[in-house]
Structures are given as C-alpha cells and as structure tokens.
C-alpha cells in the first residue's frame, strides 16, 4: 500500500528539502500546476562572505599562475628536450619525451586558463538569473505588406514579367554559361579506354617473386605457402609502379591437383600451382590471408572469402564475382604466363560485362 498525499503526523521538518513556497501559495490554490515564476535568488557563500570571495579570487589567480608556469615549462621543454629522446612512462610505455612534455605542459597551460575562467564565473560573477523576452521571428503583417509592395514595384520597374524576350534570353545565357566550367573539367583525367581491362601480364611474361625479385621456379612453391608475384620487368622504382602493381599483383599457391575442383582451374595450373589476381574483386584491396587447409583466401578489408581450389569462387563476404585466374605454364624451368588475364582484375565496373 502506498501512502498518498501529505501525512499530518509526520513532522514537516523531517521531510527532505521542503521548498520555500510562501510567495506563490496564493496562486497555487488556484492552479497547483501553474508556473511559480523565477525562484528567489539564493546567495552563494562568496556573495555574503568577503573572505570566501577572496579565497575564490586566490584560487582563480592560482590557476592562471599555474598556466603561466606551464607555458614556461612548454618553452623550456621545447628548448631542452631532444626531439628523438624516448622515455618510459608508466603506464603508457616508451614514448617521445618531447611530445609528452610539450603536450602535457600545453594541456595544463590551456586547461588552467579554462578552469580559472569557469571558477571565476561560477563563484565571483553575478549568478542572478535574468529573463529576456522573445519576439516572434515572423514579421508583422505591415512589414510583410511593405516588402511585398516593394518587391512588386521593383519587379514591375524591371519589366521582368513584361519583356519576355529579355527574360528568356537571360535564362538561356545563365543556363549555358556553367557549361564552360563543366568542359574545363574534361582534362582532369584520361578516358577509361581499355585501361581497366589490361594488365602487365601476357604470354611469356615470367612470374617474379615479390620479396626476392627472382623469377619463380615451380619447386619454389611449396604446398601450404602463399607467394606473391609480379611480372618480370616491373621494377620497384618504375614511374608507374604503383599503377601497375595495383593490377598485376598475383598470389600463387600450390594445391594437390586432385584437390582442385574446377576443371578450368586445373588446366590453367601447373602441377597444382595456381596463380590468382591478388586484387579483391570487391573494392580492390590486396588479399593477403591464406588458410592452408581449405585453400580459402580472405581479404582483410571487408572479409570477402574466396576458394582458390574452386576457381576463386566467392564463398563469403561482399565480393560479387570470383577472383580472376592467370593461366600459367613452365618454360626453361621458370613459371610464366600462358596468356594475359581473360577478364578485368579488381572491382567490377559498368563496362566490365
């Protein structure tokens, strides 16, 4: 059972925070939910005790003083701490001493200004709440009428509505002039042409190990390993290296021929060695995680998962189509491409087909 209302036999003073409501009690009798109006201002200790106000003043000044000292500390650390000094600071670890000293002193210098200002505002400035009137945003009807009248007169004087030839040719000219700007954007870049379809791979190009820069032999590829390759002749310091490697990067794995499920994949492989584009068909991240047991590869960006033993088929994730496979063969003991990629590598695009 819950008790309702005020209880006569509980002394008033035992109830927590009974507010002073004497000045509104008349209105309250009429409508208990009425707005009681602004509460009376309650004095802070600083308002009535000059000693407390002095204390506050000292606290504020102290904070500004600390800020000054912190700025001195900032300048001192800028001059004194070497830029390459590393220190151990618990619990952060090994960090740049200069960065730590500068950041901490700057932080203290700034924070103390802020803390001082806020403390000043809260304890020493007047805290009397003031009410300001609002005025409707909408203009008075007379103002609106005046504006409409002015506009009508201006429009009439311009002859905008009457002289249709002037108006229409102006619209035409204004509509056409931005075309110049659009045309100027044309040289932002070349047209796509066949750029998205071609790679550096063609018949006879050797597969070069990315890490050793040596042409790959079949015996270099062990079962369970993942090897990254680039076409022979593409050097790291080439001007367009990044553009080329963004399309040409290969990953090579060796799968037991009997484990290869896809017929075409088997015929494009050499002794279980298969070469796939490393560029994910989703949005072009380089795929780099290989699961030896299942021959699945996973793109670390968006987790598209492909089955390299089954034609690079997508088995999970947001990629829309299989990884392109490169047809490889062996000549003079080295792995090389038997043809270029039969389909564009990387993310799909409208003209891909």
């Amino acid at each position, binding site marked *: 059972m*819950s*008790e*309702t*209302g005020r*209880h*006569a036999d509980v002394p008033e003073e035992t109830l*927590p925070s009974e507010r002073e409501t004497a000045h509104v009690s008349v209105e309250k009798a009429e409508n208990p*939910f009425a*707005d*009681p*109006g602004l509460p009376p201002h309650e004095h802070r200790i600083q308002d009535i005790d000059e000693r407390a106000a002095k204390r506050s003043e000292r606290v504020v000044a102290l904070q500004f003083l600390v800020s000054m000292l912190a700025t001195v500390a900032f300048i001192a650390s800028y001059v004194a701490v070497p*830029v*390459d000094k590393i220190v151990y*600071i618990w619990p*952060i670890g090994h960090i740049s001493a*200069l960065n*730590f000293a*500068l*950041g*901490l002193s700057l932080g*203290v210098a700034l*924070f103390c200004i*802020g803390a001082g*200002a*806020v403390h*000043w*505002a*809260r304890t020493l400035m007047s805290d009397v709440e*003031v*009410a*300001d009137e*609002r005025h409707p*945003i909408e203009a008075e009807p007379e103002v609106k009428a005046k504006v409409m009248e002015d506009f009508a007169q201006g429009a009439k004087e311009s002859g905008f509505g009457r002289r249709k030839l002037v108006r229409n040719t102006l619209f035409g000219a204004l509509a056409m002039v931005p075309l110049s700007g659009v045309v100027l*954007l044309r040289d*932002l*870049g070349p047209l*796509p042409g066949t750029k998205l379809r071609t790679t550096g791979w063609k018949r006879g190009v050797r597969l070069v190990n990315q890490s050793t820069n040596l042409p790959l032999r079949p015996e270099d590829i062990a079962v369970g390993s993942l090897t990254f390759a*680039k076409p022979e002749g593409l050097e790291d*310091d080439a001007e367009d290296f*990044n553009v080329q*490697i*963004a399309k040409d*990067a290969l990953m090579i794995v060796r799968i037991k021929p009997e484990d290869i499920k896809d017929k075409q994949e088997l015929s494009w492989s050499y002794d279980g060695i298969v070469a796939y584009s490393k*560029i994910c068909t*989703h*949005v*072009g991240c*380089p795929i*780099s995680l290989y699961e030896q047991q299942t021959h699945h590869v996973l793109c*670390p*960006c968006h*987790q598209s998962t492909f089955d390299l033993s089954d034609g690079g088929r997508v088995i999970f*994730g*947001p*990629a*829309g189509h299989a990884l392109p496979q490169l047809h490889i063969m062996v000549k003079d003991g080295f792995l090389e491409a038997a043809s270029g990629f039969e389909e564009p590598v990387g*993310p*799909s695009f409208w*003209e891909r*087909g």
Partner: protein
Amino acid sequence: MSNETSATTTRRGKAPRGERVADWADGRLGIYSLAKANMRKIFPDHWSFMLGEVALYSFIIIILTGVYLTLFFHPSMAEVVYHGSYVPMHGIRMTQAFESTLAISFDVRGGLLIRQIHHWAALVFLAAMMVHMMRVFFTGAFRKPREVNWLFGFLLFVLGMFTGFTGYSLPDDLLSGTGVRFIEGVILAMPLVGSYLQMFIFGGEFPGHDIIPRFFTVHVLLLPGIMLGLLVAHLILVFYHKHTQFPGAGKTNNNVVGMPLLPVYMAKAGGFFFLVFGVISVIAAVASINPVWAIGPYRPDQVSTGAQPDWYMGFAEGLVRVMPGWEWNFWGHTVNFGVLIPILVFPLVLVAIAVYPFVESWIRGDKREHHILDRPRNVPTRTGFGVAWLVAYFVMLIGGGNDLWATHFHLSINSITWFVRIAFFVGPVLAFIATKRICMGLQRRDRDKVLHGRESGIIKRLPHGEFIEVHEPLDQEQLHVLTQHEQPTPIELGPEVDENGVERKVSRTQKLRAKLSKSYYGEDSVIPKPTVEEYKEITSGHGHH
C-alpha cells in the same frame, strides 16, 4: 557630435582610450547597435547545451593546428627513398606526402603533438556533433523556428565526415591508401559513369599521382571553407532565435532565462574553449593516434589486417562489409549491387534524420514557434524513432569493425556479419518498441509523482502495525515541469460519408498523416497528464488511502 557626448562623459574632456577606439569603430562598423542587442544577451544553462560548444571549439582547434601542419606537409605523390631520422624506414620508397608526415612526426619539434591534436580533435569534433545532434533531436529543439539550423548542423556533420576522410588520407600511409582504394571501388561501382569518374577523380588509373594533391585542396580549402560558412550561419541563427530552454520555474515560451553573455557566459564559454583544448592536448601527449611510422607507406599490393577507418566512417564501412555480394551482368554491363546498395543506403539513413523535423511538423500540423524543450518521454514516437536510428547506426559500426569483434571476442566473423545483417533490420524495430514502452512507463511515473508525491524513503509504522512509505508532495516548480507539456489530440479524418450520404474523398496522404498522427498523439503514446481536479481531489483526501 560625438565629441560633445564624449566630452560630457568624462571630466577631463577626453574619453578613455578604449572608448575612443570603440567610438572610432562604431562610426564605421556600427558596433554599438550590435553590442546593445547582444552584449547582455541571455543564455540558458544546461550541461547538454555544452555539447555543441565542444564541437565548435574542436573545430577551431582543428583549424589552428591544421594551418600549422600545412606549413610542413608536402601534398605530393612524387616518390622518394627515405633517408630521414626515423631509422627503421631507411631505404624504403614512399611518396613525399608520407615522407613529410614522417618529418612532421620526427624532425619538427612539437610537430607530432600538433599532428596528434589535429587528429584527436577531428575525432572529438565528429563525436561532439553527433551527440549534440542527438540532444537537439530528442528534446525537439529542431522545431520551428529552428528547422533550417538543424539542416545547417546536419550538413556540418556530413561535411565533417568527408573532411575527416580526405584528411586522414593525406599521409598516404598503408592504412589510408587502402581507404582511398575503397573509394576507387565505390566510384567504379556507379552505373554508366563509374569508370569515367574514376579516371577523372584520380587523373588516370589508381593510384596515379594526383589524388593526394587533389584531396589536399579539398581538405584544406574547399570543405573547411564551406563548413566555416555554415558554422557562422549556424551561430548567427542561434543568436537570432535565442537559445531553447528546458521547462522550469519562470521559463515560458516567450522568454529566455539564464545568464548574460557578458560576463558570465563569455567567461564560461571562453573558459570552456581552453578546457577542451587543454584536454585534447593532454590526450595528444599521452595517446598516439595514426602512427604512420608503424604502418608504413602505401603500396597497392600490400595491406595490414584490422584495417579500420576513423570511427565516423565506420557506419559506411559496416554497410559495405555486411552487404551480400550481389552483382548483375546483362548485355555486356555489370551492376555491382554489393557496393552500390550500401553507398545508397548510407546517404538515405542520414537523410532520414535530416528531414525528420519537416515530417514531424507535417504530421502535427503545428505552425507555432517552440522554445521550451520537450522531455523525450513526452514524445515517445519521436524518441523511439531516434533510438531506432541510433541502433541502426551502431549496429553498422559493429559491422564496420567485424574483424576486430571477431579477434577480440573470439567469435566467428561469419556469424558477426550475419548478426549485423539481421540486426540492422530487426534491431531498430525492437528498439523503437522498447523505447516507446519505456517512455510510456516514465510518463506514468510522472503522473504518479504529480498525484501522489515522490517516494521520500521514510518508512513509517502506523499504530496498528502497518508499514507505509511516506510520499513527499512535489513543490510547485516540479509540478509545473511535469505537467507543462502539451498533449495534442490526433488528427481525425471524419466520417467517410457526409450527412447527405455523399462519399467524401480522403486522399492517401491524408490517411497516412492521420495514421502517423495517431501513432504520435494517440492513446498508445500518451498517458493523460493529471488534471488540476484530479490533483485537488487526491491531495485534499487526507486520511483516505
């Protein structure tokens, strides 16, 4: 004439220096009229009003530190071999953009600090904008006359995301380069124009040599320029409309209660700028952010695991990660729905919250100005919608970090992805229902408090042994706060057939509006607030239980 007035104000015949300067400025800029209207302008106080300030101040911090960074950063994709002071990178090929970022971090004294303040402030900026937006949303501060300012704020949030993205792409490190590659894939997925756009934006094939300088211009000039304009407009409107306030004693729709701009608000707000700057500086001193030296320069054929965008892009990232890989091929063309749908849903979700003020005012048909904030519980449908939106947003943040969830909590990435796929649709619905019910519960509690007082925690034993808890009646301010809100009645469509038996045409939109109106203001969303009569009936009833 001004000589005369200043002569009368001071005894020595010459005004003090400050006044003379102000006079000079007033004669040319009219500052006195401006100051008259604004110097003692009243600002209401509430902790939640400071969220927008955090956003404002972090934006200023970003501009200050950003200007400093441009003095040292080379937005160039020309390749160099590194021989700088960071030994582990010696001999590695990188672009000048990356090299100069290393120089800022290791050779410029304080450069690392400013870089880290810049990046941390960007994260805080976006977070503060988001939370500020939620405050405005849940309290209904977006209602007339503030709808346009809501849109300005929304645009600032969206532009902030893209400024952030172009910014963290500039160092051309392995992580951000991966993000740029992602953008390339997104552009390519656009039907018809994708490959052309890609060539134009990148100045050729990915990555080319143009994207970093172009991003630089967008990041330091184009977007911040627009944002600065929007920000000024946003603040002018805040001044012009005067700030909203929560209901309370003496607070009405026709006044604004608080402290004057000069001195209190200026000291508090000005001081708060230094507090925010100070805290971000300390964060930048102790917590490293985007350590590009540990990540390495970008190469299109390399990637690291756990690749994550900055948090505000995580929502878009999540959409892209969990979307099934649907792809259509027809007549020699490919439509990559796996990428296309996420990048269409991304703006749609954002626009849903942007247009909300207009939808709500249409449903309610309310043309009045509102300056008293709603308590979220009193508008359960709006609150429910807001929470549902947030749930969709955060579910997608989980999706955006699905690999980290998988590795940190030892979960299967496939099941996380499936969870996100389902939760994106189911979560918001459940959240909406739950929020609405909680709001109704809180409304009931308010009603109870008004009529029966609040629980005082005092247990009393009656003479016959029964224990009761004493309820303390609320004071008038609390009664006012709990009962001041409006409870509009839902729109009635009226009978379908009028008194003459003629069928009345009710358009579909009218029907929809009536339905929505019912969901907002119908009996399922409103606990009738206590009337004065009910209150008097109960409070006069001493002795009865």
